[in-house]
C-alpha cells in the first residue's frame, strides 16, 4: 500500500514537514515547538495558523473561536486541521517568538542582586560533606539550579559563592500536551510519555550550562510544582487527578545522572526538592526561602500570580499556603486579543488627561495586549469611569478600545474578574486562617514574570492586591533564587510547619470570591 504524503512549509521559519495525506497537524507541529495550550481541544485558539497557500476547511471549532474576519484572512486552528493537500502556513506563535528575540526580557534576577542575597550564607553546600558521600564533591565547586515551570524553564550554573556563571531558559516541551497542569495529568493518564521529553530537554540545558566544565558539577537541584515533580520523577499522577488531590509521593526525589541519561559525573547528585502539598510544590518552598518568610516574627507573604495562583503567608512560627487556581488571564491566555509580553503587545496603559496612553513593546503597531497591559487598561477604565465597579463597560458598547485595532471585550474584563477575584479571595481567607489583618503584613513579595511587569498601582486599583503600596514588592523568579539559596545553605534551612489549606473545602470561599470579583468603588 502506498502512503501519500503532503508537504507543509511553516513560515516564517520556512520549516518543511511531510505528513501522511489527511492526517492531523498536531504531532508534526508540536515536534517543531508549536504549543497547543488547551491540549488541542479547539478551545483556546492559541494554535492559530494562517493559510498562505493551499486550503484548510473551516471546522466547527474554527467558527466557534475565530472571528469571521480572521477566518476570511485564512486563520485556522492548527489542532483541528487535517492536511489534504500541500500547504504553506504561517504559524501565529512563531511570528511573536521571532520578534521576541530582538526584545529580550530578563525574568532572572540580576546576578549582582543575587550575590548580595546569598552572601551571608557562604560557605557553600556544594562543598559540604554529605553523610556517606565524602567523595570528590569538595574538590568541585559548581552546581545547577533549575526552576521547572509548567510553561518555562529557567536554569543557572553557579559557583560556591553563588556567582552565576551561565543561564539558560527554554519552553517546557510538555507544552505540546496542553498549557496547564491538568492537561498534562490527563495526557499522562492517557498513556503519553511526558517524562522522557522533559528529562531530555533538561539534560540538554544542563549540558549547555556546563559545557567544558561538566566534571566540576557536584549537584543539581530542581524545583517545581507537584505535577512537574511527579512527571520528572516518573511518579504516578493519578492521585492528582481527583479529590482530594493529595499524592502519597511528595518527598524529595534523588537521581543519578545515569538514571536520567545526563552527561554529568556519575557521583553528581540530582535532586528534585519536596512538595508542600496538593499542587503546591518546591517552587513555592524555594520562594518561601527566597522571600525570607521563615526568618522573622513579622508576617510576610509570597504571591505567585501564575495560572495556579499560589499564596503563602506566615513567619518563623508557621506558614499557611493555598493555590487559588486563578487561570491564565494574567498571562493574557483567556483574553480575546491577549498575547505574551513580546513585540507588538500593549504592556502598559496610562490615563493622561482622560485619554488612554498605551505603551507598545518594540516599535511596531499594537497587535494585542499582555497581562500587565490588561490590568493597566482596566484600572484606567475604572479611573475614567469607562468601566463600572461591577465590571460593565459603561456605555454598553461591549468593547473598550485601547489602541486600535486592540480592544478589550466585555468578556475579557469578566475573565480578569474571575482571576483577580480568586487571588484576592484566597489571600483574605489565608489571613483569616492566621487570625491576622492586612495591617500586620510586613511585606508582600510578587513572584514570577507577571509580578515583575504589573504596575502595583493598577493591581491595587482593580483589587487584585489589597494592601498598602509600600509593602508590595516585585520579587522576580523567587523559585530559582530560592533553589540557589538551598544549594548554598550550609544545612537545610529550618522551616516552620507549612499548612496547605484547601480552599475547595472552605464554604466561605464562594462569598469571598463573589465579593472580590467586583472592583473597588473609589480608590
Amino acid at each position, binding site marked *: 500500500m502506498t502512503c501519500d504524503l503532503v508537504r507543509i512549509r511553516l513560515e516564517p521559519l520556512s520549516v518543511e514537514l511531510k505528513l501522511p495525506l489527511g492526517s492531523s497537524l498536531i504531532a508534526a507541529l508540536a515536534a517543531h515547538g508549536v504549543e497547543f495550550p488547551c491540549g488541542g481541544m479547539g478551545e483556546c485558539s492559541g494554535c492559530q495558523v494562517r493559510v498562505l497557500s493551499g486550503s484548510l476547511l473551516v471546522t*466547527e471549532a474554527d467558527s466557534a473561536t475565530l472571528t469571521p474576519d480572521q477566518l476570511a484572512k485564512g486563520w485556522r486552528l492548527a489542532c483541528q486541521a487535517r492536511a489534504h493537500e500541500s500547504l504553506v502556513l504561517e504559524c501565529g506563535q512563531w511570528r511573536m517568538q521571532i520578534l521576541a528575540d530582538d526584545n529580550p526580557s530578563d525574568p532572572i534576577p540580576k546576578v549582582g542582586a543575587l550575590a548580595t542575597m546569598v552572601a551571608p550564607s557562604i560557605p557553600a553546600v556544594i562543598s559540604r560533606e554529605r553523610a556517606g558521600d565524602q567523595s570528590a564533591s569538595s574538590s568541585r565547586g559548581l552546581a545547577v539550579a533549575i526552576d521547572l515551570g509548567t510553561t518555562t524553564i529557567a536554569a543557572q550554573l553557579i559557583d560556591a559563592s553563588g556567582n552565576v556563571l551561565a543561564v539558560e531558559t527554554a519552553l517546557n516541551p510538555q507544552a505540546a500536551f496542553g498549557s496547564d497542569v*491538568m492537561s498534562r495529568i490527563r495526557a499522562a493518564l492517557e498513556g503519553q510519555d511526558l517524562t522522557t521529553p522533559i528529562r531530555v530537554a533538561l539534560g540538554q540545558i544542563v549540558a549547555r550550562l556546563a559545557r567544558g566544565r561538566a566534571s566540576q558539577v557536584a549537584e543539581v537541584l530542581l524545583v517545581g510544582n507537584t505535577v512537574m515533580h511527579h512527571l520528572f520523577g516518573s511518579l504516578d499522577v493519578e492521585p492528582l487527578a481527583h479529590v482530594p488531590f493529595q499524592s502519597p509521593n511528595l518527598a524529595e526525589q534523588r537521581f543519578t545522572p545515569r538514571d536520567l541519561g545526563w552527561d554529568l559525573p556519575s557521583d553528581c547528585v540530582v535532586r528534585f526538592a519536596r512538595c508542600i502539598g496538593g499542587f503546591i510544590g518546591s517552587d513555592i518552598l524555594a520562594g518561601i526561602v527566597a522571600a525570607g518568610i521563615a526568618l522573622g516574627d513579622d508576617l510576610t507573604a509570597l504571591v505567585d500570580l501564575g495560572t495556579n495562583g499560589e499564596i503563602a503567608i506566615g513567619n518563623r512560627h508557621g506558614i499557611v499556603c493555598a493555590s487559588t487556581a486563578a487561570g491564565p488571564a494574567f498571562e493574557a491566555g483567556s483574553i480575546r486579543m491577549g498575547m505574551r509580553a513580546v513585540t507588538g503587545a500593549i504592556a502598559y496603559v496610562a490615563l493622561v488627561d482622560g485619554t488612554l496612553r498605551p505603551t507598545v513593546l518594540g516599535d511596531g503597531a499594537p497587535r494585542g495586549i499582555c497581562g500587565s497591559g490588561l490590568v493597566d487598561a482596566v484600572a484606567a477604565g475604572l479611573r475614567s469611569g469607562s468601566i463600572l465597579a461591577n465590571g460593565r463597560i459603561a456605555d454598553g458598547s461591549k468593547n473598550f478600545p485601547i489602541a486600535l485595532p486592540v480592544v478589550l471585550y466585555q468578556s475579557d474584563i469578566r475573565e480578569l474578574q474571575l482571576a483577580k477575584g480568586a487571588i484576592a479571595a484566597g489571600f483574605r481567607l489565608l489571613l483569616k486562617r492566621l487570625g491576622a489583618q492586612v495591617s500586620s503584613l510586613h511585606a508582600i513579595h510578587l513572584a514570577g514574570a507577571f509580578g515583575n511587569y504589573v504596575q502595583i498601582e493598577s493591581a491595587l486599583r482593580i483589587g487584585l492586591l489589597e494592601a498598602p503600596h509600600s509593602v508590595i514588592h516585585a520579587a522576580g523568579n523567587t523559585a530559582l533564587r530560592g533553589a540557589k539559596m538551598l544549594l548554598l545553605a550550609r544545612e537545610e534551612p529550618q522551616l516552620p510547619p507549612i499548612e496547605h489549606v484547601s480552599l*475547595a473545602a472552605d464554604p466561605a470561599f464562594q462569598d469571598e470570591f463573589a465579593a472580590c470579583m467586583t472592583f473597588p468603588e473609589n480608590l
Partner: protein
Amino acid sequence: MALNVDLYDAILNGNAKKAHAATEAAIAAGVEPMALIQESMVPAMDEVGRLFECEEYFVPELLLAGRAMKGAMELLKPLLTAAGQKMAVRVVIGTVKGDLHDIGKNIVASMLEGSGFEVIDLGTDVSPENFVAAVEQRKPHVVCMSALLTVTMPAMKLTIDALQTAGLRTQVKVLIGGAPVTHQYAKEIGADGYSENANGAVGLVKNLLAGEAA
C-alpha cells in the same frame, strides 16, 4: 397577572432582606404561593438571566439574585407542601465525582429553581452511583452534571453509562456543563444537551421537556 413589584425588584437587585420582607408581606396579604412564584419570582429570574446573557450581569449579581430568590422560596416551600402542591418539573443536579467546583453549579441550580422547577442539589463530588440512586428515589425529569476540570469530565460519561446500566437512561434527560465542557463532548458521551451558561440551562430544560411532550 399580578406582578409583585417589591419581590421582583428585590430579586433583580439581589437584595435578600427585601425579598424576604416582600414575600412575608405577600403571604400575609393572602397571595397564593404558587402565584407568587409564577408571576413574580419566575419573571424576575428570567430578567436576571437575560441581563446575564447580554453581559450586564456577572457571577456576583447571579449569586446575589439567586440568594434573594432562595430566601423567598424557603418561605413558600412549606406552604406549597401543606397545600399539596408540587412543581411540575423535577431536576437533580450535582458536580461530578472528583470535582469540588460548585459555584457554576450553584448558579445553574438557582436559575432552574427560580424558573419554577423543583431542584434537588446533590452537592459536589457526586459519584455515578449517587446520581443513579437519586434518579431511582426522586424520579427527576432531568439530571444536570457540572465539571470544571479536564480530568473530571470523564466522570460525566461514567455517570451516563451507570444510568444506562441501571436501566434509567431513557427516563431522564441528561444535561452537562462547566467551563471545559463543549457541545462536541456532550454529543460524544451521549448527553441530551449542553449549555455554556446558566441561562442556557433553563432554556434547554424547557425545550427538552417541550420536545418530549410534543
